């Protein structure tokens, strides 16, 4: 029988209490225990970034994190950016630039780009490429994604 542990944390602004398997990763908890499936499973080993979430203000791979380690922390998933004006602009920029094809990488891309834009409000192309190094996309060839993020940062300079 697997060992369970009760944790309490803030998920997308709301306090949550859940009981999780101690060996479970945060990605499995989000998708299978809590039922938030916006965060994607791509590789399960830190290579693709599809599972990117933000914890205490930084982005990380939820597949490389123990679910119990969410205890007491502030977790944001793609669902939590639904009513965020900064993320709205990012999402619109992705649509405008055709940066979404199958869309599987998109939640992870948005989570990582959002984190990057909080650190560097107006990133240039090199900075965006660097920031998205941990996110793979099988479809777009990246150019449109990078353009979308650069444009979003630039848009804020000249409203």
């Amino acid at each position, binding site marked *: 029988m*697997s060992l369970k542990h009760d944790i309490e944390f803030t998920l997308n602004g709301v306090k949550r209490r859940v009981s999780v398997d*101690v060996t479970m*990763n945060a990605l499995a908890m989000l998708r299978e225990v809590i039922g938030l499936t916006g965060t994607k499973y791509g590789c399960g080993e*830190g290579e693709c970034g599809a599972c990117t979430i933000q914890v205490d203000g930084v982005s990380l791979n939820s597949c490389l*994190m123990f679910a*119990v380690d969410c205890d007491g922390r502030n977790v944001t998933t793609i669902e939590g950016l639904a009513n965020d004006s900064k993320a709205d602009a990012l999402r619109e920029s992705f649509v405008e630039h055709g940066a979404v094809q199958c869309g599987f990488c998109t939640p992870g891309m948005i989570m990582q780009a959002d984190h990057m834009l909080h650190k560097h409000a107006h990133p240039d192309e090199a900075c965006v490429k660097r920031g998205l190094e941990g996110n793979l996309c099988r479809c777009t060839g990246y150019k449109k994604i990078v353009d979308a993020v650069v444009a979003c940062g630039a848009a804020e300079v000249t409203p």
Partner: protein
Amino acid sequence: MTELKHYFAPTSLDQAVECLKDGDVTILAGGTDLTPQSQAGRVKIKHTLMNIRHIPQLTGITLEGREIHIGALATITEIMEHPLVRQHLPVLVEACDHFASDQIRNAGTIGGNICNASPAGDTLIPLLVLDASVELASMPEAKLYRHTMPLSTFFVGPGKTRKSLCELVTGVRIPLPEQGHVARFFKLGTRPALDISTISIGVAGTLRDGVLSNARVAFGAVAPTPTRAAQTEQALEGQRLDAATIEKVAAIARDEVKPIDDVRATAWYRKEMIHNITKRILSHVAQA
């Protein structure tokens, strides 16, 4: 070894080392190694899983006398952005800059990088050439006991260190580099991001009038542990870094390493790269 029966998240160092007393504990820091290793079954979690995240004594980067202290929980991102590290230990910043991806740098800790003891661990090479020491804590009797060990003697094999099962790494101490100190790091991989080093090299020393003293050379991914290269260091010590010396030292480096063939490269390729890159780094050091 028993089955996982207990999860514990201590909030003080005393609680943590007390818990470690029976030695049947798996320590969790950022989890970037432990999560995939345990899920793939490569590592079995012991009786207790101890999450050290909430121990304040393991955080922070500070100047203590003539040493920089980096807490075990400092993440790769925190290290590469910290003003003290940027000012005094640029070679460590360089290595952190080539580490995995932003997401992994935000989660992975220096304590985890040291204890995972991979021959390719990226912070280990600069730490070795900077003469870092590992700081350990345990509770052999009823009292907290702390000691330090030179990092150069800490590793014994892939994933194996001289840390006992009852010890916790609390941080690393790095002597403040003196005037004229130069240090360089180079990581060779096949792509810029998310790549495990094929080889990595660190070189450091004090350069005065073109002469290098206190020479330190360390290689990653060419032996079962990250290692200092004694013969290469000896060949460098007190030398003027002219073209002939650099060529001679690079050849000694190539002979000194005994790498293996694996999925990332052949032994032959690694030896050639050690030669070529040692040469390149020494030329950079000479121009510093």
